[in-house]
C-alpha cells in the first residue's frame, strides 16, 4: 500500500482539547491500546509518567505514540570490570521506553507506524537527552515491525526488545565525532 506522505501528517501533544474531540472514534483493533489512549494516557501525562503524541491525517486521528523516560539497571554484583558497558561502571543506563504505539486500523500499512517510531528514534539521536537505548515490550502482532527496524531481544526472558542508540549513531556517522570541536581543541 502507498505510504502517506510525511507532509500530510501532523503531530500534536495529547491535551484536554484534542482528547475531548478526537479520541472517541480511534480504533486500532487492539482493545487494550485503545483503552489506554481513551482512559489513561491523559491521566498518566498529567502525572508526568509518560507523554503521548497524536498523529493526525486530514484532521483525523491516525495514530499515537507514548514515551516514558526509563533506565536499565544492571545488578553488577556478579559481573567483573570487563563486563562494564564501554568501560562505564554505571549502575543504570538511560533509556526511552516506547510504552504504546498504535495506528487506527483504517490507516494501517500506510507508514504511520514508521513515522511515529521515526520521531522516537530521531528524538533519541538528536534530542536534548542522553539516551543509550530505546526499548519496547511489543504486542505479538508488532514483533516483525520492530525487528525490521533493528530491535531485538537481548535476554532469553524476552521482557523487552532493545535498540542500541550508540551503535545506530556510530554506524550512521562512523567518521564523525559527536563533538565537532574535539579535534580543533586537541591540536
Amino acid at each position, binding site marked *: 500500500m502507498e505510504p502517506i506522505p*510525511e507532509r500530510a501528517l501532523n*503531530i*500534536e*501533544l495529547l491535551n484536554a482539547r484534542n482528547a475531548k474531540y478526537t479520541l472517541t472514534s480511534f480504533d486500532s483493533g487492539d482493545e*487494550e*491500546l485503545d*483503552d*489506554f489512549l481513551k*482512559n*489513561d494516557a491523559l491521566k498518566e501525562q498529567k502525572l508526568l509518567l*509518560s507523554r503521548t*503524541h497524536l498523529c493526525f491525517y486530514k484532521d483525523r486521528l491516525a495514530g499515537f505514540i507514548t514515551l*516514558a523516560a*526509563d*533506565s*536499565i*539497571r*544492571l*545488578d*553488577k*554484583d*556478579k*559481573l567483573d570490570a570487563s*563486563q562494564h*558497558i564501554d568501560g562505564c561502571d554505571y549502575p*543504570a543506563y538511560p533509556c526511552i*521506553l516506547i*510504552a*504504546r504505539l498504535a495506528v487506527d486500523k483504517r490507516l494501517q500499512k500506510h507508514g504511520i507506524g*514508521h*513515522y511515529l*517510531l*521515526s*520521531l522516537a*528514534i*530521531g*528524538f533519541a*539521536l*538528536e*534530542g536534548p537527552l542522553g539516551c543509550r*537505548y530505546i*526499548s519496547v*515490550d511489543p504486542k505479538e502482532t508488532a514483533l516483525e515491525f520492530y525487528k*525490521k*527496524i*533493528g530491535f*531485538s531481544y*537481548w*535476554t*532469553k*526472558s524476552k*521482557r*523487552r526488545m*532493545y*535498540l*542500541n542508540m550508540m*551503535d*545506530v549513531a556510530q*554506524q*550512521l556517522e562512523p567518521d564523525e565525532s559527536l563533538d565537532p570541536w574535539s579535534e580543533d581543541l586537541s591540536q
Partner: protein
Amino acid sequence: MARQVELGLTLSGEEAKEFLKNEKSPAFTSDQLAFFRQAKKIYKANCSKF
C-alpha cells in the same frame, strides 16, 4: 484500566550477562540505516512539537 508499563527494569544474574553480551548490535542493513537517517530528518522537522 490498561496494563501498567514496567519502568526501571533491573537485570541481574544471567539476564544481566545476556544483556551485556548482546547489547552490541550487528551491522545494520542499508535499509535500516536509511530509516535512521530519515528518522533524524523527521524529528528535526517536528522537534518543536515533539
